[in-house]
């Protein structure tokens, strides 16, 4: 079943009005990108708590992508700027615990930017593939073992 090659698993949080719409457009345009990414829809990236990014890593994500509206173009005025702050903050935290900060990335994508979104996803998958599996995967397991 499982091939030896490492296939990263990436969770992408996409805002309803822009990034999610561009992911749909990528579909209409039949743009191909690696299937390693799973999209979770959020009304606004401003809804995303720091905790969600951490939860994703704890549960075994190798990378997390946050995609919001273009700066200045947020449907909810400046939710994407709030998200950017939280992503930056989480990146710092990741570094502190020894996780490469390239595993968490925020991008600004408009509803028409299907190709840039696909490119971002492709690039993210490649970046994370090169980084290798998230060290938290085994850490998480170790922790569980030590707790039990």
């Amino acid at each position, binding site marked *: 079943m499982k091939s030896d090659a490492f296939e990263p698993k990436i*969770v992408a949080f996409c805002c309803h009005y822009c990034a999610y719409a561009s*992911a749909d457009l990528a*579909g209409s*345009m039949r743009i*191909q990108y690696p299937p390693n990414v799973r999209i979770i829809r*959020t*009304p606004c990236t*401003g809804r995303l708590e720091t905790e969600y990014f951490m939860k994703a890593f704890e549960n075994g994500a190798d990378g997390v992508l946050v995609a919001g509206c273009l700066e200045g173009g947020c449907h909810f005025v400046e939710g994407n700027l709030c998200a950017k702050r939280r992503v930056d903050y989480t990146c710092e935290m990741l570094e502190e615990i020894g996780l490469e900060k390239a595993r968490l990335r925020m991008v600004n994508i408009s509803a*028409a930017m299907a190709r840039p979104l696909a490119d971002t996803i492709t690039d993210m998958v490649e970046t994370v593939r090169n980084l290798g599996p998230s060290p938290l995967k085994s850490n998480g397991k170790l922790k569980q073992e030590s707790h039990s």
Partner: protein
Amino acid sequence: MSNNGDKKIGAVLVAGGGIAGVQSALDLANSGFKVYLVERDAAIGGMMAHLDKTFPTGDCATCIVSPKLVECARNLNVEILTLSELVGLEGEPGHFKATVRRHPRFVDEDKCTGCSECTQVCPVDIPDEFNRHLGTRKAIAKLYAQATPNIFGILKNGHSPCKRACPARVNVHGYVQLIKQKEYLKAVNLIRERNPLSAICGRVCTHPCETECTRGEVDDPISIRLLKRFASDKEMEMLASGQLTLPDEKTPGLDARKVAVIGGGPAGLTVANDLAAAGLAVTVYEAMPAAGGMLRYGIPEYRLPKKVLDHEVEIIRRKGVKFVFNCRVGKDVTFLDLRAKHDAVFISGGAQKSRKLGVDGEQLVGVVDGIEFLREVASGRKPQVRGTVVVVGGGDTAIDSARTALRLGAKEVIIVYRRSRAEMPATPSEIEAAEYEGIKIRYLTAPRRLQEKDGRVNAVECIQMKLGEPDASGRRRPVEVPGSEFTIQADMVISAIGQVVDDQLLGHIVVKSEGGLFQIDAVTGQTSVEGVFAGGDNVTGPATVIEAVAAGKRAAESIGRYLKGQDLRGDRFEDFLRPIPEGLLPALDKVEKKPRAHPEEIALANRLSNFDEVEQGLTEEQALAEAERCLNCALCSECGRCVEACKQHAIDHAMREQTVTLDVGSVILTPGFAEFDASRKGEFGYGHYSNVVTSVQFERMLSAAGPFEGHVIRLSDGREARRIAWIQCVGSRDATCGNEYCSSICCMMATKQALVASEHIEGMDATIFYMDIRAHGKDFDQYYERARAQDNIHYIKSIPSRIVQLPGSKDLRMAYLDETGRLAHKEFDLIVLSVGLEPARSMAGLAACLDVKLNEFGFCDTDRLQPLCSSRPGVFVGGTAQEPKDIPETVTQASGAASMAMELLAPARNSLITKKSYPTEHDVTDEEPRLGVFVCHCGMNIAGTIDVEQVVKAVEREPNIVVASHSLFACSDTSLSNLKEVIHQHRLNRIVVASCTPRTHEPLFRETLREAGLNPYLFELANIRDQCSWVHSAAPGLATEKAVELVKMSIARARTLWPLEGGTLAVDQAGIVIGGGLSGMTAALALANQGFDVHLVEKDNRLGGNLHSIHRTLETENIAAFTSDLIDRVQKHPRIKTHIEAEITGIKGHVGKFHVSLAHGGKNAEVTGGAIIVATGAQAAKTTEFLYGKSDRVLTQVELETQLHEKRWLAQGQNVVMIQCVGSRNEKHPYCSRLCCSMAVKNALAIKKLDPNANVYVLYRDIRTYGFREIYYRQAREAGVVFMRYVPEAPPQVTDDNGLMVTVNSPDLPEPLAIEADNVVLSTGVEVDFENNKRLSDMLKVPLNADGFYVEAHMKLRPVDFTTEGIFLCGLAHSPKFIDENLAQARAAAARAATVLSKTHLDVSAQVSYVNQQKCISCMTCVTVCPYSAPYCNKDGKGQIEAAKCMGCGICAAECPARAIQLHHFETDQFEVMIKTLLSDDREGNDGSGATGRASTAHVVGKS
């Protein structure tokens, strides 16, 4: 606007579905009116849907417009009529009857699911008009990827010339396209729909289709006949190789009606084929031993092999046709007998008898009749042929006889024909072939006598002919040349001068005949005897195969109808065969020439000793190249592939145009604009040079969803363009093309395009060639300055002269006159022509139908003081149909026009709207989750990549799943009804659908849940199409795995969903307007006219504001009368309560109920209302520059206007210098005040009118007389006003040392110029009362920009809204603008307010945030972060959220440090369960520890 009981119609027709129409429609529908939104195109969205980004905010146009379009489509009270146009309007305001023509879409809007299967199989590529011909689209397509409505449509352009030229109307275009797709069998089947003799006609047809082929106008017609042969031969090859088998033999039912066909030639075979296929019992009575008629016994084998004929006869026979051979009617059976035994008879006995030569010696041995000769050969007998053969005649029979004689051993064959080559009826290619084979043809030669020797013919005595006058056939009659007799030696003579109907046949059949031919009805093919039909050569005389087939088709149709007792005449195929409309043919001069395919032929040496087929078919390569040459001039080819692909059976090629009549109270015209046709400016080479594009094309290039996905390339070589130029005013400010006006938006559009392109292209260098930069809108100048500050964007004030394309590189060399008037050159990779705006192409027709006046430029004529009214009462206008303008003004006018309609129809509000009622919701709070999972195939869109059944299997055993199934289209009507049933049957309480995107389909499914009695929030959609099957089609296995995970994630989330109920809040149906100037008064009147009570609050001691200082405008002399009338109407209106000298001291509340505290000369009062309109205005700016205040001869424009008005100015002097942009467009006031240029022009013209000798100088930076105001700028120049430019770095100097003196250092002049001035007039612009605005904005909790103007919710699409619901904005408080613009904006604010005030209760969204009071730590972070001021500190000192204000973004929830806030439907545990589920499988796979924690995620969260 009386309400005297005359019943007005509460519906409005909005003509034009661009952003203006959409805005009008939404405002009207959301305030109680039924709307018909009539759009000419296949989708709404207009020009905005074409744009990439918008200025000055850089928003993605699609992002902002799509939600509006979707909202429009979902609104129950907006009926969108696409592909429709308003063609008539009768009646009076309040009750019109509108006539709307609806063009066919050829796709059933109710059935189409937008799945795109059709477009994938369509063979026809046509230029994509949406992308302005950058790229192609299919004939069946959506207008654009995100089109609303999300359905497909077919573009047709009448019927192709080839099809119309074919007597049998074979769909040539269709089968050529199928061949292009290598669908050979489908091609043959399509041919056989109209012609059962496909392989035969592929060989012997005279192909009139080719004569008419449009490609013939480019190079050569398409080789249609050979394409038909190619497809048919492929079918035979496949049969021979066993890849294909013939259909089973059918026999007609015992009770089938009986039809006799006399004669098994092409006409008879066609009738037999069609009627047998329809289930009738057909018997063909044939005199000869085999079927085919002339096909078998007339056409030699080397042209039509018998096996080809046998093949097609066999196909016909298998349909259930019975053949009786060797049965001659009149000899072996009588006609009356046949008639008695059958229900109908078709006579197609042909014209089998040769005409006699009528010369002496005709009876000699060695003289044979051509038809007889060919029949002998065809029957397998070999007549003796030797020596010299003379063939008499010029038709195909003559040629066939000659070539046959040659093959049978003749030494020499000579054809004698009495006319010239031009009159020869034989097929030209046949004549050529005969000559090639060595046959001699003697033209203008007629036999007079055949000479005898030894009992045999041995010579033909001939005479030379010449051509005389035309005879009855139209051909010139041959006349003998006296004394020109001569003799040709001949061993055999074949006479082939024509055929006639056998008189034996004529004699036995009792129907009417004339001149040896049966008489029939031209439409039905019926003879003089009912039930007896005829066709083919025995009706027409000798004619072509395809004509016989056509006759057969006609008769078969009639016989079918006759036997069913139907009308024989009406609704024939012919009746709806429309030609291609003139002017719609493809641009033939741009088509690349490609040679026509020619088939191989057997070498001469190898052909004369046998009857092998001479002409070979096309090779596959040739055939494909040939099919590719088709120009698709009819657009859709009707090949039928879409019909076959559409699983919803939504496609109907037979749809016709319809006309509907609608009862409406009012009409709003929003047809938008058309781009100027850049090819009219030949000097720029558009259309000739591929690297010259229009600004709209460039916009499509920039668009990530466009044809090049955002890459800016040169069309000549696909290379990225680096050096790009924009030429402004192409088709604007240009009297030579009739467009003297300014198009208003192009300067900003070019600036935006340059800025956006610099983001796309590294190292891009932009040059904008302009006359004046008109950045007159709100925040535009700042945007322009930003672009100007960039190193790689250059603005050159210039007059462009021409563009030349450099050979080789195809770079473009642009010549222009620079600002000093010198000729300069510059080279570019790409040049963008900023094309101006013209009236929509439909505007003239629309105006004529509606009896609405147009102005001199063809835009809708309006008055500056009635900017929303057309010349016809009750018909309003908005957007670019009125004047070129940008999006915010368009949207504003659209809302304003909606207000006009609301005022007119106020009594009929809510009379025609639809409200849907739903069953009582089933209470699920105490139930365990019972889930239904429905996976959609979306035709092949999902199922083609993802193994849908495997997905169902993978999830059906998940906990709580009660039902898991899959369906072809989850969104089809049937599936939705089924969903409702299943919900009831299994008492489901959570639904998961795995299909497409929630953005388009969630509302539909939620609606279904509501109809089934479930709360709509118990629904979850897994997007396995747009975000899975479509983007991973290359990896179906992984796509299936991913789909399973996505569905599992949705299931996990669905378990945690709970029912949500949005609240309602009561609306105080009164409006509060702050500010009693022009805008405030207009807004108040608009609301009051709509029937709402209004509080109008003014801080001054009188109404009118700035109006009191305006005396005239460019267009209107008497503003004072307008002002006093307006004030009078406000003061007298019973619904308006005016509060003069009232200070606002506090504002509380929210949408639906605001409390405004007022202080009135020491007394306090409170007014309440459901909506607030802010119209606090602005005023003329003050200045201390240019000696203002120091010299009384230095005035402001306002002061000058007053002096002029009061006739005080006259004495002042002769030299007037006006200085523009005083205190504007600088660091302190970075904005443009918009009005001042026009004001200077207005006052300059007034001075010139008073004293033509006065010298007026206008010192300016850019003259911004946009739109139609440009005309006055021109008038001023013509009147002698001198306009001189200055740059801000070197402003004019004003001194008063020795009299008033102005020195200007203009870049247009070689050296500084000093002007002695009698007056200096300063254009000081507009500024707000910052302090006052600040105080009010704090109370309203709405933002101000740096200049003190209020900031609207969205600059483009919500120009009069605030982000805070229920508060609206208009007038100068928003930004500087003219009277007409203020009037429109004030009405827009009123329309927007009416969407609140028209309701007794407002629905509050259920997807709002809420605070857990126990957890709240009173930090009030939520209050700080919310962009909508929804959270507040409640009486317990805790945060609480005003649901009415909450927009559901969840920013507060994420920011709350105590985690006390949650956003309904997007709760933390819902996110967490999704994350966990998505990743759990992975851990399972990796460590094999099995399901971890999945059961624990399956819990129900009760409503807290």
